[in-house]
């Protein structure tokens, strides 16, 4: 299937549902027929610049969404409880105390898709009563329980063991998810990159407070403190520890991305899920 048609269809479906339009209503607003819109949304037909401009105007999405195939609307992070968003229904299990965003869940979903295919991912999300189109808009809210369940299910299927946490975390370095967050992927000094990442993580999720505690020429120390609302989700400490490992690897890989032969090694020296007041991570440049 033509990738550009796939991106167009995904973005249009996702935005239409978020806006609360049925296919018929949106077709009327766009001054076309439902049949034509259906073909566009099924990646069988493209649109010209005028139609795309009108569609973006109606659906309130940035036109450049088409380039990445993701709707990236930057907004300050928050914790909210969401059950309905336009045409979407979010199960309470995943919509309560939603401090994560699709942006932070996307690496996990991309990893799942790589292992199980697009059809497998769709089937999985539908089994969780989630519409796959929900995961095209990066600022859509979702709670940490969703990510924990996804990781747990991948572990149960053997997918995570087979490919490893490092492979999963490598999906965090995908450029499109960082576009509107101001994380500078071109920084050649991994510690400068680390500072940029930590400063911008609130745009991905509001579950933790990140703080750069110390930094010198080759090492840094940063802390990660869970926010109170996470207690309401009842996530076992063992599951949160896996996410700590993921975060270490993801941040280390992203910070190393622009640095050529240098790598930022990150490890946890204290963990709030093992009784410490907060998670403390140390980072060191290695060549």
């Amino acid at each position, binding site marked *: 299937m033509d990738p550009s048609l796939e991106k167009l269809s995904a973005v249009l479906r996702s935005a239409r549902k978020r806006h609360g339009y049925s296919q018929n209503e949106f077709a009327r607003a766009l001054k076309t027929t439902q049949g034509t819109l259906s073909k566009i949304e099924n990646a069988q037909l493209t649109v010209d610049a005028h139609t795309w401009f009108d569609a973006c105007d109606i659906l309130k999405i940035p036109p*450049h969404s088409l380039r990445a195939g993701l709707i990236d609307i930057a907004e300050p992070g928050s914790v909210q409880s969401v059950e309905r968003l336009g045409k979407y229904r979010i199960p309470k299990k995943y919509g309560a105390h939603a401090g994560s965003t699709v942006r932070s869940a996307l690496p996990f979903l991309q990893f799942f898709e790589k292992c199980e295919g697009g059809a497998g991912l769709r089937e999985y999300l539908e089994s969780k009563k989630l519409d796959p189109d929900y995961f095209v808009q990066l600022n859509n809210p979702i709670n940490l329980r969703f990510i924990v369940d996804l990781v747990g299910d991948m572990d149960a299927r053997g997918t995570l063991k087979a490919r490893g946490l490092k492979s999963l975390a490598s999906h965090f370095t995908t450029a499109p998810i960082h576009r509107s967050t*101001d994380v500078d992927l071109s920084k050649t000094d991994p510690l400068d990159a680390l500072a940029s990442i930590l400063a911008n993580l609130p745009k991905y999720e509001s579950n933790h407070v990140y703080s750069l505690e110390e930094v010198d020429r080759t090492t840094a120390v940063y802390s990660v403190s869970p926010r109170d609302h996470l207690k309401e989700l009842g996530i076992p400490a063992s599951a949160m520890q896996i996410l700590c490992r993921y975060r270490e690897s993801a941040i280390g890989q992203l910070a190393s991305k622009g640095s050529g032969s240098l790598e930022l090694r990150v490890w946890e020296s204290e963990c709030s899920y093992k009784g410490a007041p907060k998670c403390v991570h140390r980072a060191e440049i290695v060549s």
Partner: protein
Amino acid sequence: MAAMMGLSSTAYRNHKSRSRSLPVDSVFSLADHIPISFERIMGGGVDLETLHEHAKGNVGHIPARYRIGAFSKRRTSVNALYFIENHLGAASKDEILKHLQVNPAVFKNPDETISIHFVTDVLNYLARYQHRRESFVQIGRYSTDTNRHSRLAQVYAECRTPSEMYDKLFNALVSNYDENYDYRLTRLSKIGATLRVYQRKRTEDALNLRVYGSVPICWMRIGINAALPKYKQLPEANVTKTKCIFEGDDCCEMEIDFEFSHYSALRRPVPVHRCQ
């Protein structure tokens, strides 16, 4: 032009003569080459004079829309853009400025003037892409961060009480922010104030508009008024809008409750009725 749009000469001629529809990618390609956004290319309203001046290197030139009726100080726009850059990303700020055909160099001096249309258009651009009331209130709150090293911050910090801060802002210093409105404190006590904001005829005439500004600007103003006590590291005030020009009233009116700030400043316990 064909090369900038990623088209062959034949395809470009066909599109120009409207015998073929224009591909989306061609417009993206054009927007990559010239400092005009996709929305501006397709929606119209390109300020050609500004395009020409920027191409000559005159980055300080601003579109006519923002030169006419220039009664706002640029510091309000600086705050909005600073918030956008720090909370939404530099890419978002760059996109907005490109869309409005304004170069960041324009904001070097916060005391220079600009039309209220500029900050209106910035906030309306955010509102267009799903930003809600709380985003604009946060932009207003951010003014204390943006201006924390300014001489205005020092003046507010030297006030003895929150009441004195609001008195100073609206009776002495407001012209440092804008001269589009008349700000009137109709009530001022040690724990609260009522503020009315009236449009000025001078701006109405200059802009040829009966009503100017926007609802997001009202929300931003709520944030600015709430955050004022923070210049003295005091808790924010609670601000409630009770009248709005955009709802047909003759003015915007806000009730500003700074009781918490007042008692914090005195380092006294807050009265019982507030603790219950």
